[in-house]
């Protein structure tokens, strides 16, 4: 018997392969099947209103991604065979990759777990399918990032144990705890946190600097990953906006709940991105744009337009965005001097910016760099030249919420720390800012359990009482190879030999 129309059109296919995969249960109660859907207080009156702007079905997804990855891996192979690492701008650039591989790629994996989980928790089939596809995207991104950077691991230090370090190293508790907070929330908060606040509002501040940074610095492997991931990221951003509009349109009672989540996750994302700020301004030998410029374009302008658009739902811009806007003049400098003084405990190197770089910063930060930060580097350079390269030999206080050292300063008073503290049920807690302190007050039960790396070392849970033992044994950072100053490091010497140059300082070469 001849079938007239063998092939379904796109609309029918989407209907059959997504929405029709759901049914009204008759044996079990709906709330027993989707037990996580109610407790956050979000009211969904009609799941069929969920719009999937891409109408992507699993078979199409599979075919499309397979083709993309085939091309991607062909380029990685070519990059490795042609010793692509020799064509980057400078070996200092590789330190940005070390930060990315230990700080960001494991978050892709955490995102995969998060979306796989919430992809089970919604009773609406459209939302479930969108989350499942994003889960697979995130898993692929985690893998392809590791493959893109694996070539560098053969030639440079500090890239050898990223996932292990992510669970242990002090500054990596910042990204790790960020995602743990999101993943331990309910499904609607997770989507507001990751799909909306991170993927939609803030992701350009992560991906644009990294991928443009890779392009500006001759790293073709990472650039190619960036292009390959771009279509997925576009889908994630669209999902982020769709999620928030859908929740807000479903019921007016959802508005204050979502507003609180936006306030929280804007701030948590902003703190996390402080690591990116120093990467942009300091770790890219060829600069793309300054952190302040990126913040103006991607947050103040784009975010401003977005929140204008969301006004009609009763949503206002995130609380404390004024603090974040003011911080753009200081953030990267405060972070880099922090990492500079704790380089003994990082898997990447730090250095004093070169003269041209400092002049670039004077130009990009006319009101702050020469006044507050150039004198710091002049002092540090003088000390290093006298053989006293500065390392801070005590451990820093960490914020109970964001887990960054409490290094941030008050808005309008850039030499005064914005430290806060409070007592909760007889215990003292310390914070980097009013905003993090507020987050604690909202959900103290969550943050009293924070695994703060400094306190864990002092409790004796990190295989040693002194920094050297912790760094070597517990962090798997190879002392003298992965850590300390860049100038004179094995990476630096290796790079000079690739370029056929001798180290400027012969005495350091002999060491």
């Amino acid at each position: 018997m001849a079938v007239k129309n063998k092939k379904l059109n796109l609309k029918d296919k989407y209907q059959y392969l997504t929405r029709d995969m759901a049914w009204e249960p008759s044996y079990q109660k709906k709330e027993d099947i989707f037990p996580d859907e109610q407790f956050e207080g979000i009211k969904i009156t009609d799941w069929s209103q969920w719009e999937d702007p891409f109408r992507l079905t699993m078979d199409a997804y599979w075919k499309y991604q397979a083709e993309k990855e085939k091309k991607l891996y062909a380029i990685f192979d070519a990059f490795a065979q042609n010793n692509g690492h020799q064509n980057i701008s400078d070996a200092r650039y590789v330190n940005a990759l070390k930060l990315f591989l230990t700080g960001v790629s494991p978050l892709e994996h955490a995102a995969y777990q998060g979306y796989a989980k919430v992809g089970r928790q919604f009773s609406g089939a459209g939302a479930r399918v969108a989350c499942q596809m994003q889960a697979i995207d995130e898993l692929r991104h985690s893998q392809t990032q590791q493959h893109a950077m694996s070539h560098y691991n053969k030639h440079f230090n500090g890239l050898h144990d990223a996932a292990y370090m992510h669970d242990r190293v002090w500054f990596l508790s910042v990204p790790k705890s960020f995602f743990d907070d999101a993943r331990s929330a309910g499904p609607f908060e997770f989507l507001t946190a990751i799909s909306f606040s991170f993927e939609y509002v803030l992701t350009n501040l992560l991906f644009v600097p990294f991928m443009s940074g890779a392009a500006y610095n001759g790293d073709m492997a990472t650039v190619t990953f960036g292009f390959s991931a771009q279509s997925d990221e576009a889908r994630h951003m669209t999902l982020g906006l769709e999620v928030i509009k859908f929740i807000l349109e479903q019921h007016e009672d959802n508005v204050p709940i979502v507003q609180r989540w936006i306030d929280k996750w804007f701030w948590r994302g902003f703190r996390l991105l402080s690591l990116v700020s120093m990467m942009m301004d300091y770790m890219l030998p060829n600069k793309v744009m300054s952190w302040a410029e990126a913040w103006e374009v991607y947050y103040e302008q784009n975010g401003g337009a977005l929140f204008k658009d969301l006004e009609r739902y009763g949503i206002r811009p995130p609380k404390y965005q004024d603090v974040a806007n003011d911080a753009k003049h200081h953030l990267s400098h405060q972070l880099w001097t922090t990492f500079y003084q704790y380089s003994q405990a990082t898997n990447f190197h730090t250095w004093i910016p070169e003269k041209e770089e400092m002049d670039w910063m004077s130009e990009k930060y006319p009101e702050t760099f020469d006044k507050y930060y150039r004198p710091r580097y002049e002092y540090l350079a003088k000390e290093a030249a006298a053989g006293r390269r500065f390392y801070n030999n005590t451990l820093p206080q960490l914020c109970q919420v964001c887990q960054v050292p409490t290094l941030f300063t008050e808005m309008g008073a850039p030499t005064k720390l914005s430290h806060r503290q409070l007592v909760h049920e007889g215990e003292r807690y310390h914070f980097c800012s009013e905003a993090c302190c507020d987050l604690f007050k909202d959900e103290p039960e969550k943050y009293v359990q924070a695994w703060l790396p400094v306190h864990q070392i002092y409790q004796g849970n990190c295989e040693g009482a002194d920094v050297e033992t912790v760094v070597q044994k517990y962090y798997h950072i190879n002392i003298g190879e992965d850590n300390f100053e860049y100038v004179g490091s094995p990476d630096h010497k290796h790079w000079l030999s690739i370029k056929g140059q001798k180290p400027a300082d012969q005495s350091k070469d002999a060491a």
Partner: protein
Amino acid sequence: MSVNALYDYKFEPKDKVENFNGMQLLYVYWPNHLLFCAPFALLVQPDMTFGDFVETIIKPATAAHPDAAKADFLNAEWLLNDEPFTPRADASLKDNGIDHKSMLTVTTPGLNGIANVGY
């Protein structure tokens, strides 16, 4: 407020004093000396004297700063958990009222950091 959860969500604080093997945490902030990026997190014996604490812990911690040699910490201006505080050098930290995870802020008038910008 408290966390919104599916079940009775209650966990022990991770940094209770009994987890520190007889020691306690003490934070010290020296304003206008941001060479040290954040307050120090220090592990101290609760029964050490305040004088010993300054000699054996504060002085080595701050030594890398050129102002440290000029600083008279014992006679400086102190805050304990943001309240004015006059330390007694021969009394223990505990008897000075310094409990676990307290923060001391010590201001040394006239010393404003490197290049006079609080660094």
